């Protein structure tokens, strides 16, 4: 890339788009001519976007790059409410595809200069007339700037069909605006050297088109009858999100069990230390959350089957709900929480479905197991034997 731009020009173009996304929070974004998918790579982190789509003529390139758009390992660990679907299509942008209507933002970064003028005309009709996104960002080289390059050829790249001056680009844009009902603002990235900013402009010129409210309904149903889907979908991935009921439930159950276990341990701690240290009842009380712990109760009498084998602790849902903000956020109400826990095999509840029943293990097992600190042989053997017992043979 041009060595005098820092960060590189191509990164500055991407940052221009990202900046726009951050400020305007579009939900559905399409990158036209996404090539190596490098812009999509960056946009996917901005999770107010819910649908992120890339189109390119070169399906091979897309297939090579698409796996880089898969969710990150960590996206699975703590799913959020944000949802994101990333799709890639192989297609020719002079064709209309019904799946591409109704986007909030369409970008065409360094794309138009690769199109022959006929195609450009058709592309404009497809983009502004048919897809009609709320906003369009188009970037293209500014030929005014070329005088600063030691260019031996007419254009910066051999595949460029044209390179426009600022005037040419702006007049083309104005034309588009009046034809399709948009309003354009011009800027760019890649500053000219000091003193020449005015005379030469940016290395890359950028136009941001906003659809005028009046034009909003004009096109919507005109082509409706003949919806076509000429683009070929090559990639489609949905990021994990709490809006997926299964994921929500799994996350909720995990969170609930974690807190229930934690509260159970605190409760048991309190039970054992409590009777020893009655000297400080006031302080003890101060630590309790609204006297909440009294409500946790032993339930030897609840489940006759368990009674004979183990002791259990019931942790009321209400307490869990009060304690853990994540649970509140995920379930919206205690009733809803209880509802969500129906038929979850890992969770046992009391008859009224108001408390989670947790098995209280033998206290001695505590934090450290028998296999650690002992002089080993005996620890090793006892560990193995423990397993025999756990599975109940012998």
């Amino acid at each position, binding site marked *: 890339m041009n060595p005098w731009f820092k960060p590189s020009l191509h990164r500055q173009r991407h940052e221009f788009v990202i900046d726009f996304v951050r400020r305007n929070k579009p939900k559905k974004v399409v990158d036209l001519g996404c090539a190596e998918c490098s812009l999509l790579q960056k946009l996917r982190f901005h999770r107010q976007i819910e649908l992120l789509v890339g189109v390119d003529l070169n399906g091979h390139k897309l297939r090579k790059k698409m796996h880089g758009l898969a*969710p990150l*390992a960590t996206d699975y*660990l703590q799913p959020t409410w944000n949802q994101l679907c990333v799709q890639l299509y192989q297609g020719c942008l002079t064709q209309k595809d019904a799946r591409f209507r109704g986007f909030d933002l369409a970008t065409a970064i360094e794309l138009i200069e690769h199109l022959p003028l006929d195609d450009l005309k058709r592309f404009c009709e497809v983009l502004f007339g048919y897809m009609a996104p709320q906003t369009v960002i188009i970037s293209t080289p500014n030929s005014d700037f070329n005088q600063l390059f030691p260019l031996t050829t007419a254009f910066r790249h051999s595949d460029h069909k044209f390179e426009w001056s600022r005037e040419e680009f702006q007049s083309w844009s104005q034309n588009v605006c009046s034809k399709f009902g948009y309003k354009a603002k011009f800027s760019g990235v890649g500053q000219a050297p000091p003193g020449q900013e005015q005379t030469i402009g940016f290395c890359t010129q950028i136009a941001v088109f906003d659809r005028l409210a009046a034009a909003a309904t004009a096109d919507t149903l005109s082509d409706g009858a003949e919806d076509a889907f000429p683009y070929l979908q090559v990639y489609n991935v949905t990021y994990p999100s709490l809006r997926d009921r299964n994921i929500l439930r799994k996350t909720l159950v995990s969170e609930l069990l974690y807190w229930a276990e934690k509260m159970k341990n605190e409760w048991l701690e309190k039970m054992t230390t409590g009777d020893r240290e009655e000297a400080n009842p006031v302080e003890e009380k101060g630590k309790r959350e609204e006297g909440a712990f009294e409500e946790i109760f032993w339930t030897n009498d609840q489940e006759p089957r368990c009674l004979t084998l183990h002791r259990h602790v019931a942790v009321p849902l209400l307490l869990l709900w009060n304690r853990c903000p994540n649970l509140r956020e995920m379930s919206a109400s205690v009733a809803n929480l209880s509802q969500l826990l129906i038929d979850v095999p890992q969770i046992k509840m009391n008859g009224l479905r108001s408390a989670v029943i947790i098995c209280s293990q033998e206290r001695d097992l505590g934090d450290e197991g028998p296999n650690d600190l002992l002089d080993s042989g005996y620890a090793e053997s006892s*560990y193995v034997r423990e397993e025999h017992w756990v599975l109940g043979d012998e």
Partner: protein
Amino acid sequence: MASQEKMPIRGRSRSRGRARGQDPGPPGILSREPAPEVAVKEVGGLVGRGRQKKAPVPFTEEAALEISAGFRQVKIGERGGRRRDFHDGGINTRLTMEHVQTSKTGSSGSAIQLSANFFRIVSRPQWVLYQYHVDFKPPMEARRLRTALLFQHEQVLGSAHCFDGTILFLPQRLDDKVTVLHSRTRNGEDVQLTVTLTNELPPTSPVCLQLYNIIFRRVLRILGLQQIGRNYYNPKDPLNISQHRLTIWPGYATAILQYESSIMLCTDVSHKVLRSETVLNFMENLRQKCGSHNFSDICAKELVGLIVLTKYNNKTYRIDDIAWDQTPFNTFKRGDTDTSFKDYYKNQYGLEITDCNQVLLVSHVKKVAPGQTPPGPALLIPELCYFTGLTDKMRADYTIMKDLSAHTRLGPEQRAGRLLRFSSTLNNDTEALGELQKWGLNFDKQLLKLTGRVLPPERLFQQSRSYGYNPRTADWSKEMRGLPVIHSPPLQNWLLLYTRQKSREAQGLLETLYKVAAPLKISLQKPVMIEYEDHPESLLRTLQHNVRAETQMVVVILNSNRKDKYDCIKKYLCVDCPTPSQCVVARTISRPQALMTIATKIVLQMACKIGGELWSVEIPLKQLMVVGVDCYHDIAAGKRSIGALVASLNQNMNRWYSKVKLQSRGQEIMDGLKMAFAGALKDYYKFNKCFPSRIIVYRDGVGDGQLHTIVNYEVAQIVESIKSIGQDYMPKLSVVVVKKRINCRLFEHSNGKVLNPPPGTVVDSEVTRPEWYDFYIISQAVTFGSVSPTHYNVVYDTSGLKPDHMQRLTYKLCHMYYNWQGIIAVPAPCQYAHKLAFLVGQSLHKEPNVALDDLLFYL
């Protein structure tokens, strides 16, 4: 956690990071360099440095014998540029051993039909890889640019290609030997590319194999698996252990290598433990638990050495330090401007950092991009990081490990089933198949079938009595009941320490000890009973007051298994006041129904700690010294390594000499153990009035990719220390590298069921490597899960011992670990060395007192 099965002796308490070896990282100076790899962007395909990484290994006389298989100079550089050869390729040790040139297989035992977790590769027979050199005129610096320029010519080169910036590999030949191409940069600069054919590689060449592996990793990605560390995992179907906030991802460890007779894909089921909370959550919890006054120490202890994943890329980082003086408001240089971490992550990744007071994590990034100065350490934001794997503390937590193993332990039937399912998923995915077929790759759909042998069970001797054991369970605790042990020094002067609360348990234990000791013919006098206060300081004082020179043994009943008291006892009695000691946690002797069994184990353990000999097997070789070497990497204590050496002192293999060396980071284990080795020889002389005529060294604790150090360096060190005894002393020497943590799995098929092969199963064909003298033995029996064979690689051998004898001797030695009345997974000296290194690394942090050298005090 790689799926580790629980079995009697597997070094469960293994040190963290062992497999990573001793990769001396760059000295870390904290600078305010950018933590985030600002410029690094996913670049597809295969790019990387085409530069060879030379092993910084001093080349010695012996090492000169070692000749690599060639092609080592050509390696495909990958993205990131840094990749060690974890498969120890190109080390051809078998060449140096005359007696195994034609055959390295044994003959004892009965044949057994097995299958293994290997899939044969079915390629075109004449499969050749074409290697081209690509020259750029004018020269282009950036690798990415080079790649882009080259692949403007995809129609000429084809869609299957692999390019690392200089060297290009193609599955087909271009029309001409030299092809000249013209490209243009975006600046309009014309570049001439000359693509010259330099080599045609057969499918067995290391480069080809490396390429297979690279392609296969692509395929795993296509199958939707996520790479974490070296293996690939499926994030879509996690198992949650909610109580501990753990998530387990099932996945696979894979490697394509040249095995004995064909190229195969070795696949094993692996599980990755992740945590569904950020490092920041974890730190907050920790602070709540331990309070803030020594928080920084505790926190560093817990965190350093752990591997984290971040929210903004799929890279793993290892936490090397904590930057207590940094916060997300701190800035780094990005281009020409200073950016704060907070702004950077918000702007680049839309990640809002909510806690602005959190400290930062430091990771020394080892990778250096070509033509750039090494970056400073990466600074990571705890809020944006997730842990992978387990902490040592979690590993020691019985309940966590129990829950984990319940989820991850797979029986042989389940494991084989999963592997076959993997194979069918692979063979049914059109995209994955397409990628493989581009390169002409194709895999067998069935597990590899092979024949192994089951060695006959050994007979055990105790004085004049001998007995056998059930060959399936490989355990003789029942058989030895009531039999006198070979020899036990009478225990006349010993102490029993206990707290007041546990005096009843102490009394109970003592009575039972008398009861069980009598039939074993272990003479036990009345101990001095001492009560102690349950504090480390007062415990230490009690020891100082009561342990005298003539004290033979100290038994301490601990109220709980708090590490501090245990460490305090061991430190005092192993270093300052050398006395064998035995700790017992009160809880374990509180169950009357188990007391007899437990007391038997304790009394046996006490006996061998003071020099007792319990049982023996027949060892046909005379004047033999067996040596075990293992190491422990203490990551918390500044990456110090501990090397332990244990050597047999008598014919029955029941007395052992031991030595430990603590060494600084980056130092080779054998540097310190050279002296220990000579010490062992002298001690052997003291016991036998002669030096051993044969020495067999079992070297454990060798990480993947470290074999070259053993072969090129350690063997020479051993030879040298033997020479130090005298010029004309020329014993026969064998060096065997022992590996337990391997991906090879073996299954027995019997009556339509898939079983673990029985103890004594030996495999020395098909899944071994042609360039090594190696074999697998399953010596232990496991009750749950699938058994993992132990790999033995004889890297140096002047013994002339037949492979069959080497295998049988190795198997015999697995019977000789006195802390387990059964067969263990490794030869006893390895397990002894492991125990010793672990004790020193975990508790002593110092070399034990020389007075204990001849005793198994570390059991």
